[in-house]
């Protein structure tokens, strides 16, 4: 399969989706111990995904297109909003507050999915096009997780 930011990162979205639903279903059932672990797995995977985008993809995209205020700025902002909701979910689990967790997770799901939609429909395809030659090397650095660009 050809190297593509779109394919690689969209697949990572699907993986995070699975983990998200596992945690929510366990909270729904009142299975708090498992839910704690699933939430942690979801947060690990998702925070890593954000970090990879913010360290590698966004700067590369901005450098190539000269747009620091364009699409990547909004994606960054939404990452921040989601990080706040992650904290809410953690607190709700600690307090065993099922009702509030399910409300926060509904909000997060919606925010997350419309965010993914924008990345998959617009940002990733644009990046694949704009970064054409660099893509294989960029993907390698993303998988390795470092070192960040100077």
């Amino acid at each position, binding site marked *: 399969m050809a190297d593509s930011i779109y394919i690689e990162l969209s697949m990572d979205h699907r993986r995070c989706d699975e983990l998200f639903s596992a945690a929510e279903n366990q909270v729904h059932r009142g299975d708090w111990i498992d839910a704690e672990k699933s939430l942690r797995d979801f947060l690990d995977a998702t925070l890593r995904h954000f970090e990879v985008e913010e360290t590698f993809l966004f700067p590369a995209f901005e450098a190539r297109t000269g747009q620091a205020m364009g699409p990547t700025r909004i994606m960054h902002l939404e990452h921040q909003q989601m990080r706040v909701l992650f904290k809410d979910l953690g607190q709700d689990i600690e307090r065993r507050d099922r009702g509030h967790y399910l*409300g926060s997770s*509904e909000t997060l799901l919606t925010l997350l*999915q419309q965010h993914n939609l*924008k990345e998959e429909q617009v940002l990733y395809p644009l990046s694949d096009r704009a970064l054409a030659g660099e893509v294989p090397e960029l993907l390698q650095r993303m998988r390795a997780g470092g070192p960040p660009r100077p």
Partner: protein
Amino acid sequence: MATAALSLEQAPPISVPLRFFLTAPLFGITAALVLLALGTGAWTTRWSAGALAVTHLMTLGFLAMVMIGALMQMLPVVAGAPVARVRAVSRVVHVLLSLGTLALAGGFLSGKVPVLRLALVLLALAFIVFIGAAAGSLVRARAAAVTVRGMRYSVTALAVTVCMGLLLGSGLAWHWPLAVPELTALHLFWGLLGWVGLLVIGVGFQVVPMFQTTPPYPRIMTSHLTRLIFVTLLLWSPAKWFAGHSLLVHDSAATLASLLGLGYALFAAATLALQRRRRREMPDITVRFWRIGMASLLAGAVLGWAGLWESKAASTSLEFTWGILAIFGFGVSVINGMLYKIVPFLVWVHLQANPGGRGKLPNMKEIVPDRRAGIQFWLHLSALLLLAGAAWMPRLLAYPAAVALGSSNLFLWANLTGAYRLYARILASGISR
């Protein structure tokens, strides 16, 4: 890279979509009032003034009202192509569409030609502005996305529907001799199975898997279904128009119409099957509304097949039932369900972005509580069943159906304005803090 500069721009201000969303239930209430005022009189034939007025209060005042608001909101998100001058466009379209729809209903009911003429002018302007703005955005959008393709077909079908509607209306307003039954058939197919249906399918391919957490639709369906339906509509139209000329043409029209039914039945069946495999165990109000929508679509397809191949002309009750399933069972259910995701989310997002948004903010289920949405769901389902029942037993059910329709819309309106009032309150408290 000029297009990249436009992409993912901040969504439009909250007033742009909300203006349309909060108005739609008011037209549902108006439709209910008309049904109450006319009693069994609305149910004599589908050509009655009451039936035509109620049809357009729902199709223009409810369905088009929400769909236009949602398109203004979604075009930047899904297509990466914002609508130019979105504030001005939305304000103008909203006023023209609202007044035009009221005038059209008033024109049908009163039979007054000047009112009808006024309606035609207002609606023509509303759609010229909207279709122009949407087309400008859709032309620039990335062609690859399946949803963008669905939107393009849908907006094209809207243009066809509106032209035929204006022609039909002009026939009434200026006493032109028109082939009304054929033209009406084309008008309503392009409206319901083109504009409404293709937008639901195109958007559904994207939003059902994501927001209702189902597996994706089969690839073969997402890449071909909207195009096949659009092309079938194109082929069916001349066949329907000339159906009286020969048995062969008549039968081709019937075959093509059955194929349209098949296309929609496939989409409905696929959606119901995917929903059974959703990842979330928590009940979801939008999923429940969509299930009614898809069941209505299947039932409508079956009724359509039965009616088409029946030797005698379809009965009035059957025709009414088909229209109710298509407009209310399918269109209104799906849109009503989507509003319960879009409106709380918009309120939440816009609170985040505002100075009042600091501190603890309500989450989506605090913005529209499940319990309140759940009550409205049951009112909506009762309205659907009673309306379909009234098609067969108007003397018994005309009034209960009207009351259920009115209550459901009143409750929807209360739920949506409740969300908006919460938004305004938090915003005000943030500024005074």
